[in-house]
C-alpha cells in the first residue's frame, strides 16, 4: 500500500488522514466540472453527458456515497492502526513510545550557528537548522482519538445520508430564510448534498491531521482549517440570517482564541527555536521527551563564554528565568542538580523569561478556550446550532471542540503551574455556567450544546488538576454519547419536521422507540450512571477534583462547582428525555405525523449507543481504574503528570467515597427531574421560565448582551465613525449618481463646494488624488509627442542629433 509501511506503520495514519482530503478534492472537482458544463448542457455532446453524469439538476448522491466510503476506509485504517499500535510491544509498553517521522519543510535558519567563530568550543556545528517541519507522531493518545474521530465521523456521515435527504432534491424550499426582496417568500435553491459532504470530509481531514501532527505549526494549520470548515457548515443554510450570523460569530470568537494561539506559537518559535512538540518539551524539561522538572534560575551574568546562574528551588521571587535545555541531544549535560550556583556554556543552555513562558502557555490555552467554547468565549457554540444537526454532532463530538481539549492534553508539559490553575478555573466556571443555562432552555439542540460546554469544562478542569487521563478519557467517552445524543436529537427533529422546541414535543417514545432508547443510553451515560462509559471518565474527573478538595481545600470553587454541575447535568438531561419522549404529546397535530427514522439513521444511533455503553469497559467492570480505554490512554500520559501526584494520590485514597458522592449527585439530579417531569404531565407553559433567576438563565447570563455592549457596538461605532470620515455623505452620493462626473473642471468644483469638507480631503485622499492627477496630466503632456505624426518624429530626431552633436563638439572638441 505504502512502500515500507510495515517498517513505518505510522504512514498508515497519513494515508487514513489523506483519504478525506482526496474525497474533498474529488467532490470539489466534480462540482467545478458541473459548474463549467452547466451553461453548455443544452448543446449536447460531451458537456451534456458530463452534466448528466455529474447529477444533472439533482445533486449527486454518488458524491455522498464516495465520502461515506472514504470515511469507512479511514475508520477501518484507524482501527487497524490502533490494533497495530497496541500490539507492538516496543511502542506500546514504554511511556511516550510513539511512531514518528518528520522532515524539514522550510529551513529558515543556519545549519551552523556562530559558535565556531567565537572559538569557545566546537559546539555549534551540530546545531540543527531553524526549520519548519512536517511530520506525524502517533502515540496512544493520537491512536485512540484518531479511532474515535474516525468512527464517530463515520456514524455521523451515515446518519447524514438520511437526515440531509431533502438536500438531494433539485429544488429546496427553505422556509426559515426570507427572500431578499419578497418577504414571506421562502428561498428556493438547489439542494446542496455534495457540498455538505465536501465540507464534512474537509472537516474530518482537518481534525485527523490535527491529531497526527507533531508540531505546533501543523496543528495551527489544521486548527484554522477546522475553524473555517465550522464556519462553512454552521452557515450551511446561508440564506438564513441567523445561520450566517452564527457562522460569523463562531469564526470571530475563534479568531480571538487563535490570536492567543498564534502568540504562543510565536513565543515558542522565538525562544525555543522549534515548533516540534517533543523538542519543545525537551528544551523545557530536559531529556526523555520532557520528563524532568522546569528549572527556574536567577541569571547572574551572561557572557560569550558562558551563562552563570543560580538555581532557584520553589517559587521564590527572584527566579525570573526558565533554563532551557540544549537544542541538540549531543550536548553533554553539564547541568548539576543540587548546586546553588552553576555555569553553563552559553550555547548549550539558554534562558527564557518566566513571564514569557507563562504567556506562551496562556496563549495556547486561549486558543483552546476559543476552539472548545470555554468561558469567556463560549457564546458561539450554542449559536452554532444553526447548522444542520449532523454538523452539530460533528462539531460537538468529534472534530471541533475536541481539538481544544486535545491540544491542552498534547501540550501538557509546556504549561506553567499558574496556567494549570487558570485552566482548572476556566473549566470549572464553564462547567457550572453552561449547566445552569442548560437547566431552562427549551430548544433540544441548545440544551445539548450547553451540556457540551459544561462537559468540556469538566475536561479542562480535570486537565488543569493534573488528571490527564481523566480529561482525555472523558473527551473520548463524551464524543460517543454526545454524538449519540445529537444524532438522536437529529432523528427527532427530522421526524418532527424540523421542530426543535421541546414545548411542542412530547410522548414520542411509542412513535420512535429506537431513538428514544438509544438516547436514553446517552442520557444515562452523560449523567454518569455506573457501567456506562461516562461513568468511568466522570468518576476519574471527580476523583481528581476530590483529591484537590482534600489537598488544597482553599480552591473551593474547583471542587464545589463540579459537584453542582454533576447534579445539574443529570437533571437537565433527564428533563430533556422525559419531556420529549414521555408524557402526553403537547402538539397533537405534530405528534400524529411522527414516525421512526429510517435504518440509515437508526443504525448509527445503535452503534453509538453500544459505544456509549461499553466504550470504556474493562475488567473488572466495577473498577473505574480498570477501564481498558483509560489504561491505553495512560500509556501516553506525559511523565510530568507526577507533579500532580499529591492531588492524584488523595483522589485514589478516597476513591470509594468519591464514587458514592458522585452517584448521589447523579441520582439527586435524576430524581429531581423525574419528580418534576416524569410523574405528572407537564404542559408547555410549565416548561417556560417565569422567575427572575429563570429569565436570567434563559438569557444565558446576558453574555451576548454584554459582549454586544462591550465589544460589538463600540467597534461598529468606531468603524462607522471612520467610515464617515472616509465616505462622502449619502446625499452627495445621490448627487453624484444623478449627475455623473464630467471632465469639465468647473462643474466638479461647484459640486465639491456644495459638500462639507471631508476629513481626508487634505490628507490621504488628497495626496493620493494629486498623485494620480499628476500622473494623468503628465501622461497627457507626453501623449502629445506620441502623435503618430511621422514628420514630427523626424524633426525631433534631427533636433536630438543636433543636441548630441553639439555636446560632442563642445565636450570632445
Amino acid at each position, binding site marked *: 500500500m505504502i512502500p515500507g509501511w510495515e517498517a513505518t506503520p505510522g504512514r498508515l495514519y497519513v494515508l487514513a488522514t489523506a483519504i478525506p482530503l482526496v474525497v474533498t478534492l474529488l467532490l470539489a472537482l466534480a462540482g467545478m466540472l458541473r459548474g463549467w458544463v452547466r451553461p453548455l448542457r443544452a448543446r449536447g455532446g460531451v458537456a451534456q453527458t458530463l452534466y448528466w453524469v455529474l447529477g444533472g439538476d439533482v445533486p449527486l448522491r454518488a458524491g455522498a456515497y464516495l465520502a461515506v466510503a472514504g470515511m469507512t476506509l479511514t475508520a477501518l485504517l484507524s482501527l487497524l492502526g490502533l490494533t497495530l499500535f497496541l500490539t507492538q510491544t516496543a511502542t506500546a509498553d514504554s511511556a511516550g513510545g510513539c511512531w514518528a517521522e518528520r522532515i524539514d519543510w522550510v529551513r529558515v535558519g543556519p545549519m551552523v550557528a556562530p559558535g565556531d567563530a567565537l572559538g569557545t568550543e566546537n559546539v555549534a556545528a551540530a546545531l540543527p537548522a531553524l526549520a519548519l517541519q512536517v511530520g506525524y507522531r502517533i502515540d496512544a493518545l493520537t491512536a485512540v482519538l484518531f479511532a474515535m474521530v474516525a468512527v464517530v465521523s463515520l456514524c455521523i456521515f451515515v446518519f447524514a445520508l438520511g437526515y440531509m435527504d431533502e438536500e438531494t432534491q433539485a429544488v429546496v424550499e427553505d422556509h426559515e430564510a426570507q427572500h431578499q426582496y419578497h418577504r414571506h417568500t421562502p428561498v428556493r435553491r438547489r439542494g446542496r448534498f455534495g457540498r455538505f459532504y465536501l465540507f464534512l470530509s474537509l472537516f474530518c481531514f482537518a481534525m485527523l491531521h490535527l491529531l497526527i501532527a507533531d508540531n505546533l505549526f501543523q496543528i495551527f494549520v489544521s486548527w484554522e482549517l477546522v475553524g473555517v470548515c465550522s464556519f462553512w457548515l454552521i452557515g450551511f443554510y446561508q440564506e438564513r440570517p441567523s445561520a450566517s450570523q452564527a457562522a460569523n460569530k463562531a469564526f470571530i470568537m475563534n479568531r480571538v482564541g487563535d490570536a492567543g494561539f498564534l502568540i504562543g506559537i510565536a513565543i515558542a518559535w522565538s525562544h525555543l527555536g522549534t515548533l516540534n512538540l517533543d523538542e519543545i518539551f525537551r528544551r523545557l524539561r530536559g531529556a526523555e521527551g520532557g520528563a524532568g522538572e522546569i528549572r527556574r534560575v536567577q541569571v547572574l551574568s551572561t557572557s560569550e563564554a558562558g551563562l552563570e546562574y543560580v538555581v532557584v528551588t520553589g517559587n521564590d521571587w527572584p527566579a525570573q528565568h526558565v533554563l532551557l535545555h540544549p537544542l541538540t541531544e549531543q550536548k553533554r549535560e553539564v547541568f548539576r542538580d543540587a548546586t546553588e550556583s552553576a555555569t553553563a556554556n552559553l550555547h548549550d543552555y539558554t534562558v527564557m523569561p518566566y513571564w514569557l513562558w507563562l504567556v506562551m502557555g496562556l496563549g495556547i490555552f486561549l486558543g483552546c478556550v476559543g476552539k472548545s467554547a470555554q468561558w469567556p468565549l463560549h457564546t458561539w457554540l450554542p449559536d452554532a446550532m444553526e447548522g444542520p444537526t449532523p454538523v452539530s454532532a460533528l462539531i460537538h463530538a468529534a472534530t471541533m471542540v475536541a481539538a481544544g481539549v486535545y491540544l491542552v492534553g498534547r501540550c501538557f508539559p509546556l504549561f506553567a503551574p499558574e496556567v494549570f490553575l487558570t485552566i482548572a478555573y476556566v473549566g470549572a466556571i464553564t462547567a457550572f455556567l453552561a449547566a445552569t443555562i442548560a437547566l431552562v432552555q427549551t430548544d433540544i439542540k441548545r440544551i445539548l450544546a450547553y451540556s457540551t460546554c459544561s462537559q468540556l469544562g469538566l475536561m479542562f478542569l480535570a486537565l488543569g488538576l493534573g488528571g490527564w487521563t481523566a480529561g482525555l478519557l472523558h473527551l473520548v467517552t463524551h464524543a460517543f454519547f454526545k454524538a449519540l445524543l445529537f444524532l438522536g436529537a437529529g432523528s427527532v427533529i427530522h421526524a418532527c419536521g424540523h421542530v426543535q422546541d421541546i414545548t411542542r414535543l412530547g410522548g414520542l417514545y411509542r412513535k420512535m422507540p429506537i431513538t428514544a432508547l438509544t438516547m436514553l443510553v446517552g442520557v444515562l451515560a452523560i449523567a454518569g450512571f455506573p457501567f456506562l462509559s461516562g461513568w468511568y471518565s466522570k468518576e476519574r474527573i471527580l476523583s481528581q477534583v476530590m483529591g484537590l478538595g482534600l489537598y488544597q481545600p482553599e480552591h473551593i470553587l474547583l471542587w464545589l462547582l463540579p459537584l453542582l454541575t454533576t447534579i445539574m447535568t443529570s437533571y437537565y438531561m433527564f428533563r430533556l428525555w422525559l419531556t420529549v419522549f414521555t408524557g402526553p404529546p403537547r402538539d397533537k397535530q405534530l405528534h400524529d405525523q411522527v414516525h421512526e427514522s429510517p435504518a440509515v439513521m437508526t443504525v448509527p444511533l445503535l452503534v453509538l449507543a453500544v459505544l456509549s455503553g461499553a466504550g470504556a469497559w474493562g475488567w473488572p467492570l466495577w473498577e473505574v481504574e480498570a477501564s481498558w480505554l483509560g489504561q491505553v490512554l495512560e500509556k501516553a500520559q506525559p511523565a510530568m503528570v507526577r507533579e500532580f501526584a499529591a492531588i492524584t494520590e488523595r483522589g485514589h485514597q478516597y476513591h470509594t467515597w468519591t464514587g458514592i458522592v458522585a452517584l448521589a449527585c447523579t441520582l439527586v439530579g435524576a430524581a429531581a427531574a423525574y419528580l418534576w417531569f416524569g410523574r405528572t404531565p407537564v404542559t408547555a407553559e410549565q416548561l417556560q421560565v417565569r422567575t427572575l433567576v429563570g429569565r436570567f438563565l434563559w438569557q444565558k447570563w446576558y453574555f451576548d448582551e454584554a459582549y454586544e455592549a462591550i465589544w460589538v457596538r463600540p467597534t461598529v461605532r468606531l468603524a462607522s465613525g471612520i467610515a464617515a470620515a472616509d465616505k462622502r455623505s449619502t446625499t452627495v452620493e445621490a448627487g453624484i449618481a444623478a449627475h455623473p462626473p464630467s471632465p469639465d473642471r468647473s462643474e466638479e468644483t461647484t459640486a465639491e463646494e456644495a459638500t462639507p469638507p471631508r476629513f481626508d480631503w487634505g490628507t490621504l485622499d488628497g495626496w493620493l488624488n494629486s498623485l494620480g492627477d499628476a500622473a494623468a496630466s503628465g501622461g497627457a503632456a507626453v501623449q502629445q509627442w506620441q502623435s503618430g505624426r511621422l*514628420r514630427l518624429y523626424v*524633426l525631433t530626431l*534631427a*533636433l536630438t*542629433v*543636433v543636441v548630441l*552633436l*553639439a555636446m*560632442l*563638439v563642445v565636450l570632445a*572638441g
Partner: protein
Amino acid sequence: MTLSDVLFIVVAAVAAVSALGVVVSRHIVHMAVWLLFTLVGVSLVYFWLGAEFLGAAQLIVYVGGTLVLLVFGVMLTAQGPFRELRTPPVEWIIGGVTAALLLLLLAVVTWQVAQGGTTGQQPPGVAAIGLGLLGVHETVSETTLSGLPAGNVVGRTPVAYLLPFEIISVHLLVVLIGAAYLARARRPAAFRTGSDTATTPLETSSPDLTPGSVQPAVVVSAPTPALPTDSSSSEESRQPPQF
C-alpha cells in the same frame, strides 16, 4: 586651383544645388526631377573620386532603377491635391533652423574627420571589388590587379566580402517578395463598385437605391471616415488607380 578642383566644384555644385531644389520645390514632379539631377551629380562625384564602378552603379541602379520606381509612384499618386501638399510656414522655419544647426555641426565634425585623410592613394580597380565580393582577397595579386606595388598597402588583413554579398542577395529576394505582397491589388470594400456594392455600408443606409447609383449626399452621410472628403463626388474619380 587645378582643373580637377574646378571639375569637382562644378559637379558638387550641381549635386548640392539640385538637392536644395528637392527640398524647396513643392510640386512632387519637380522634386523628382531635382532628385534626378542630384543623383547624377553624386555619381559624377564618384567618378571624380576615382570610384568609376560605383559611379556607374549609381547611375544604373539609382537613376535607372530607384528613380524610375519613384517616378512611377509619382505618376500613380500625383493627382489633384497630392501634387502640391503644402507645409505650414512655421514648420519651414523650425525645419530650416534645425537644418542650419545640423549643417553647422556636421561641418565642424567633418573638419575633424578630414584631418585624418591622406592623399596620393589610388582607388582599387573594378576587378578588386569584384574579387572582394567573390571572397578573394587582394593581397596576393595586388600588383597585377591595380598596378601598384604590393608593399603599398601595409598591415591590412585580407578581406573578403562573400558573406555580405550572399546576405544581401537573400535580403533582396525577401524584399522582392515583400514588396510584391504589400503592393498586391487588394481593393478595400469602400471602393468596390458594380455588383459588389450591395454589401457595402453605403447601400445599407439607403436600401431604396439601385446598386451602383449611389448619390453623393448618401456618400457624405455614410459611415466611412477613411474616405477623403475633398475628392470629387463622382464614384469613378474617387476610385484610386490599381497597382
